[in-house]
Every structure is written in structure tokens, then in C-alpha cells.
């Protein structure tokens, strides 16, 4: 399936105008394929659940297929957890929390987490290749962003495990118990690290449900737990569909629920824990504004806009999906953006030159296609560069909409794809008004060379992360999470520990 190509496009493979080659000139070179070797990964035919330190089949023997979204070929058969399996996983986590992990001194827990961080570093290429094959993300991102950040998260929280009394002065931090964690498909290993590292550091045990389209890196992580000799039951992994996730979060023997995913599912989960004593943190959707003022360094801003919306095919909750450009610079900015778009390489996720890989699933591709069609139907003007898409796989051209009104669906709904909607503003007040005019509040971007304006805009953004003259930066020390309907609680940094502890008086 390919994206709609009825849009205005440049002449095939035309060079950007800024290159000065003259109109309609072809880019004077081709990129040779630079495929990453698959040798580092052995993908087995079948994977089981990871419960109580052992790999086990589903209680009813059922499985599901995970496919490579870049080729549509099956990668492996994965056990589909049943409610009974979830019950066993929760029981196993409870036992481990009571008998081994919860009573282990913090400095011993720390050493296990350091081991995990080191193992992730040692096996980084294996994880990167597997992640790209299962999720469709470009190898340069899984290699340079997902996997190193995942290792860094374990490294960072390892050091907290024996220092909790300094994170909560005047209080004793106790673990909550068993954490039920549900993660999305856009950053499978990284989201696993965001969830598991702080939970374990604080003395909790976990039952984690990876997304059903991307279970493989979590199951490879199970092997890391075994290599680290992590006590049995501290980490349990139960792949399966959404119903299994709901069974997990509503399980009476769970103390904490952490979810990353859509606001729609976040609501269901919040209702699932209503009336209980379970702690809850939610990291949900977004529709971030990336605001470019007329005094911004435009070339840098263009790089930031591109990174903001086309990073990971735009399948990023904090993606800068709404560009707010000051009216006086809209035309040069759009021209530069179109130039830059024509150099983006879409294709094989395992090719080291690829900028935009495959959309994670057919369902997601259909959702993007539908929303993009609505943009055109509602009167926005669409632009897509004329790049070739592979014959097979779920690919979508980087897309840019101009003449977008705030009422358009593409300006209101989270697309979760490589689609940028451009809106304009005249004054800072108007920029603030438009940026905050959304039920979401996860992130925002500000581009200006004026320091005082940055700080004034930062203050007025209703968003949990504000990138000024940069976008889509992440770090284990940096708290991440939303305002409003983008969720509550923070992941990362000292604040990320708070989600996994109960504070008692000294």
C-alpha cells in the first residue's frame, strides 16, 4: 500500500532549488544501498511468555504472528497470553516482590540494574536490528537513539536504587508492590526501559505487556534478565491484545498501573482503576505546536521541524505535528521545508541511509491515509516530495499541509504519522492561543533568537516538555510527561521515581 500521490509534487527526484542546479535538474547522485547486517540477530520461529523467570507457552497454546512492516513478511509466532497467564504472572511478581526483590538492599538491586544496562550496551546492535525489523523504524534511529537511551535509563535508575532517601528528603520511600505496565509500539524497547528501570530501582516487580505488533525486543529483553541472573518473577512479560492489557490493569493483585499510549485507551484504563487504591500514571497522546518566530535561525528551525515530525515516521506522542509559523516568514520557511523534504530518504528501515522507515502496521497506515485524505477534503493544501516507495511494506510519504485551519481534523487529531500541518500567527499572543488550543499538552517547540521571548513563551505553554531551538530530545535525567489530556505523572529524572514509591514518615 502506498500513499496518495495526487498531491502537488516536484519533478521526479528534482534537486532542491536551494542547491542552485536549475529548475527540474535531477539530484546528481544516487545513494547506494547500505544495509545493516542481520547476522547479529537470530529470530526464532516461536517465542513464549516470560513468567517467573521461565519462557512458557500460553496456557491455551495460542499464538499470534508478528510481521516485519517493511516487508509484510512474518517474523515469528509469539505466545498470546490468556487471563490465566496474566494471573500467573501477577502471582509470580507478587512472590518475587515479597521474597526476593522487595527485601533486597538497594545497593544490591542497583547492581542488577547496572548489569542490565551493560548487557543492553553489549548486545546493542542485536537489539537495534531486531527493533527495526519488528517496528519499521530506521536502523540509524534504533541504533543511535532507542537502544542507547534504553541502556542509559537502566544506568541512571540503577544509581537511584540505593539513594532513595536523598530523592525524598524527610520521607521513607517504600515500593508500591506489583506494577502493571503497558507500552506502545513506537519505541518498544525504550518504553520498556522507561517503565521497568524506575519500577525496579524503587523495589517493585513488574508485569509488562508489550504492544502486539512489537513484542520481540521485550522478549529479547527477557533473555537479558536471565543473563543478568535477575531473580525469577521480578520482570514478567505477557504479550497479547488489548483485552489482556485490561485484564492486567484491573487485576486485584496489582498495586500500580503505568500506561503509555493513546488518550482513548488511557481513559479506559483510568476507568479500570477507578475506585481502587492502585496508583496510576498515564503518558498519552499529543498534538504539539512547533512555533517559529520571524527572528529564528531558519535553517536550524527547518532541521528541528523535520526532526520534530518525521523522526520515527512521526509515530511519536510528542511529535511537532503543528507548525506555527509567524506570517512574515511563512513563505521562505515553507520553501526551505519543501527543499529539505525532497532530500528525505524513505525506505528500508535496515538501510543505514534511511531517514523515514515503515509505518508500524497496516492499521496505522490506514489511519494516517484516512486522516490525510480528510486534510485534502477539508481544503488544506497537500505537498509530498516525489520519492519512490518500496513495492511492499507499509510506507507513507512525508507530507506537509499548508492553508490549514484550526478546525481541520489534521490540526486537531493526533495522526501519529509523518504529516505536518502548517498554521500561521502574527503576534506572540496568537501563537500562545493557537498552541494551547488543544486538549493535549505533552510538548511544544519554540524557535527564536531572543532569550527573553523563549522564557516568556515557555511560561505560557501548557505542555510538559518545551524544546527551545531544538526538538525531540530525550534523556534519562530529563522528566517527560503531559499536561491536560496528555496524561499525568513523569517518566525520567528524579520525578520518575515518584510514580513508583509510597512515602512514609521517618
Amino acid at each position, binding site marked *: 500500500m502506498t500513499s496518495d500521490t495526487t498531491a502537488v509534487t516536484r519533478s521526479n527526484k528534482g534537486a532542491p532549488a536551494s542547491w542552485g542546479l536549475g529548475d527540474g535538474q535531477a539530484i546528481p547522485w544516487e545513494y547506494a544501498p547500505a544495509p545493516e547486517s542481520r547476522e547479529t540477530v537470530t529470530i526464532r520461529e516461536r517465542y513464549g511468555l516470560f513468567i517467573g523467570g521461565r519462557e512458557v507457552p500460553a496456557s491455551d497454546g495460542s499464538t499470534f504472528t508478528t510481521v516485519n512492516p517493511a516487508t509484510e513478511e512474518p517474523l515469528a509466532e509469539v505466545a498470546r497470553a490468556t487471563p490465566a497467564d496474566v494471573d500467573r504472572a501477577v502471582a509470580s511478581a507478587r512472590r518475587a516482590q515479597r521474597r526476593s526483590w522487595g527485601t533486597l538492599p538497594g545497593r544490591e538491586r542497583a547492581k542488577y540494574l547496572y548489569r542490565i544496562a551493560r548487557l543492553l550496551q553489549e548486545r546493542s546492535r542485536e537489539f537495534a536490528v531486531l527493533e527495526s525489523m519488528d517496528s519499521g523504524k530506521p536502523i540509524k534511529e534504533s541504533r543511535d537513539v532507542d537502544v542507547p537511551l534504553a541502556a*542509559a535509563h537502566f544506568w541512571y535508575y540503577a544509581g537511584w536504587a540505593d539513594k532513595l532517601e536523598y530523592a525524598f*528528603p524527610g*520521607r521513607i520511600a517504600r515500593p508500591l508492590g506489583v506494577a502493571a505496565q503497558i507500552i506502545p509500539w513506537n519505541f518498544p524497547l525504550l518504553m520498556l526501559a522507561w517503565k521497568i528501570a524506575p519500577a525496579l530501582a524503587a523495589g517493585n516487580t513488574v508485569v509488562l505487556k508489550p504492544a502486539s505488533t512489537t513484542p520481540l525486543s521485550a522478549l529479547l529483553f527477557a533473555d537479558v534478565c536471565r543473563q543478568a541472573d535477575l531473580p525469577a518473577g521480578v520482570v514478567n512479560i505477557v504479550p497479547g491484545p488489548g483485552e489482556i492489557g485490561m485484564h492486567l490493569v484491573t487485576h486485584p493483585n496489582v498495586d500500580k498501573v503505568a500506561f503509555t499510549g493513546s*488518550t482513548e485507551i*488511557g*481513559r479506559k484504563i*483510568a*476507568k479500570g*482503576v*477507578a*475506585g481502587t*487504591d492502585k496508583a496510576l500514571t*498515564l503518558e*498519552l497522546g499529543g498534538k504539539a505546536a512547533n512555533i517559529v518566530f520571524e527572528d529564528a535561525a531558519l535553517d536550524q528551525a527547518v532541521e528541528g521541524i523535520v526532526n520534530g515530525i518525521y523522526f520515527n515516521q512521526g509515530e511519536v506522542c510528542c511529535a511537532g505535528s503543528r507548525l506555527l509559523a509567524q506570517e512574515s516568514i511563512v513563505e521562505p520557511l515553507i520553501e526551505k521545508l519543501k527543499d529539505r523534504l525532497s532530500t528525505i530518504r524513505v525506505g528500508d528501515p535496515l538501510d543505514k541511509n534511511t531517514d523515514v522507515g515503515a509505518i508500524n502496521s497496516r492499521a496505522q497506515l490506514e489511519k494516517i491515509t484516512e486522516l490525510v485524505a480528510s486534510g485534502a477534503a477539508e481544503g488544506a493544501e497537500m505537498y509530498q516530495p516525489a520519492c519512490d516507495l518500496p513495492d511492499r511494506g507499509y510506507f507513507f510519504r512525508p507530507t506537509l499541509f499548508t492553508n490549514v485551519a484550526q478546525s481541520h481534523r489534521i490540526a486537531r487529531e493526533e495522526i501519529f504519522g509523518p504529516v505536518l500541518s502548517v498554521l500561521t500567527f502574527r503576534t506572540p499572543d496568537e501563537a500562545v492561543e493557537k498552541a494551547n488550543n488543544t*486538549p493535549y499538552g505533552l510538548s511544544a517547540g519554540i524557535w527564536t533568537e531572543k532569550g527573553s521571548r*523563549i522564557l516568556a513563551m*515557555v511560561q505560557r*505553554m501548557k*505542555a*510538559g*516538555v*518545551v*524544546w*527551545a*531551538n*531544538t526538538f525531540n*530530545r530525550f*534523556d534519562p*535525567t*530529563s*522528566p*517527560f*510527561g503531559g*499536561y*491536560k*489530556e*496528555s*496524561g*499525568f505523572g*513523569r517518566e525520567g*529524572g*528524579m*520525578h520518575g521515581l*515518584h510514580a513508583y514509591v509510597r*512515602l512514609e*514518615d521517618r
Partner: protein
Amino acid sequence: MATPRRSPRAAVPAQTAGDDATPRIEVRKTYKLYIGGAFPRTESGRSYLVSAADGSPLANASRASRKDLRDAVRAARKASEGWAAKTAMNRGQVLYRVAELMEGRRAQFFAEVAAAEGISAARARDAVARAIDRWVWYAGWADKIAQVLGSSNPVAAPYFNFTIPEPTGVVGIVAPETSSLLGLVSRLAPPLVAGNAVVVIASETRPLPAVTLTEVLATSDVPAGVVNVLTGLKPELVPVLAAHEDVDAIDTWGVPERLRAEVETLAADDIKRIARRPAGVSDARFDWSDDRAAERPEWIAAFLEMKTVWHPIGV
């Protein structure tokens, strides 16, 4: 509906009106709502009888309606931005002044708390004194909480990265049912010092001290609309508060247990932040006079959002 026949002020020594020592007929107070800095009766024209702990009638309190609640949320939203924008030191001073003004009304609070809660005079006096001191304790956090909860984050790249707390916005508070003044102040002060505007549903059975507190707030420097207080029936008001989409967070401490699941389900629709009574803690038995247990910076943090800011470092 029975006529109130005993004023909670009865405990204050009776005044005499003239030389002939004829007992003076007391001027009784009308207990009203507090919305946007004004004292309306409920638009619904309804009231309900409030009785003392010993069962004797005290007063007719306003029975607020859904419309009153929506008006209160609108007033809070209007006031929230200005309150959040005040300097931390100024906010601290404004809240400290609430304590100053309460100090002058100790006798009235004492009488109302003693009548409402049926506790000994010594305990009632202690509750009032602690309620005042609790304002002072929380007011002092205004210009410190950002330093305790904020951070500068050592990211592994050339960026300056910091995290600052900001108020969540409009907070709904379902006040403790049992502790009419000290419990209320202990739940009200944390979101206020954080910079939020609030809508309070007072204790249903013991609402009079809350109303008197609004008279203190009205004459303090707390801007109109920053605190709005409704009296009425919790089963009628609380679900409306929980479902209101312009309320960003809800403190469910005083929600009756039978309503809790419903309230939290309604609050989930717009991903409201929920500050719950800790597991195993009873509203009726919680000891608000235990400073250690009842004064917590975490309760301020429950009504703050953490904002993280990145900027590149370079020349």
C-alpha cells in the same frame, strides 16, 4: 423544615444591650455560598438544615445546585491565571494574611467547630489554633516548593535542561466530612499555595465553619474567584464537579466511599488528576492535629505540573 433554634455562637459569652441587663436578641447570620468573591444564596433558592453534633438545629445552609457549581468553576477559571502569575513571595504573603485574619476570629471559629463536631472545648480550641498555624506552614512553602521539587537535569548532550513546577489550574476539592475547619484548611491550603484556583464542596453535615472561612477569605487579599466554596449535598454536587471538563484536578478526600468509583470514573473522561485519600486512611478517624501526618509537601505537589525545558548550549 425545622427552624434553627440555637446559634453556634451561643458559646460566646452573651452580650447585654443596655443598662437594664435585658438579654439582647442576637442578629443571626445567613450562611451563603462564596462564588467569584461574592456571597450569593444558591440560585436554586434551596437550603438544608444543618444540625450540631448533639442533633440540635444550627442554621439553614444554602443547598448549592449544579448551576452554582458551574458558576463557581467559571469564576475559578477566570481567576486562575492571575493567581498563578503572582510572584511566589506575594502568594505566600497573601496566604499568610489569611492566618492573620483567622486569628481575629478565633472565638467564632471555636464556637462553630465545637458545635459542629461535638468535641471538647480544649480540642476545638486546638483545632482552630492548628488551622491557623497550618496556613502559616503552607504559606511559607510558596517560594520554596519550586526549589525543592524543581531540578536542573544533567543531560548527556550540550543542552541546558531544567524542570519547574507550575500550577495545574482549577482544582475541585471535596472537603473532609468530619473535620470541619482543620481538615478543610489542610486540603485547601496545598493547592492554593501551588497557585491553583479552587472550587470547594464543604463538609455536607458540618459546613458552617467553611462559610465563616469564606468571610475571612473575602476580606483577605486572596483575589475574588481564587477560592469558591459551595455548601450542599455531596451526592448531588460531587459527580458534577468530577465530570466538569474545566476542572483539571480533583481532591477526593471527602468523597463518600460509596461514590468514589463513580467519581473517579467520571474524572477519567478528561484525564483529571485525582488526589486520593491514602489507602487505609479513614476520613472520619484521620488525626488532623498530627502535624507530621497532615502537613506534607507532597500534597502541594499533587496539584503541580512539572514542565521540563531544553535549550542548546552553544555560541
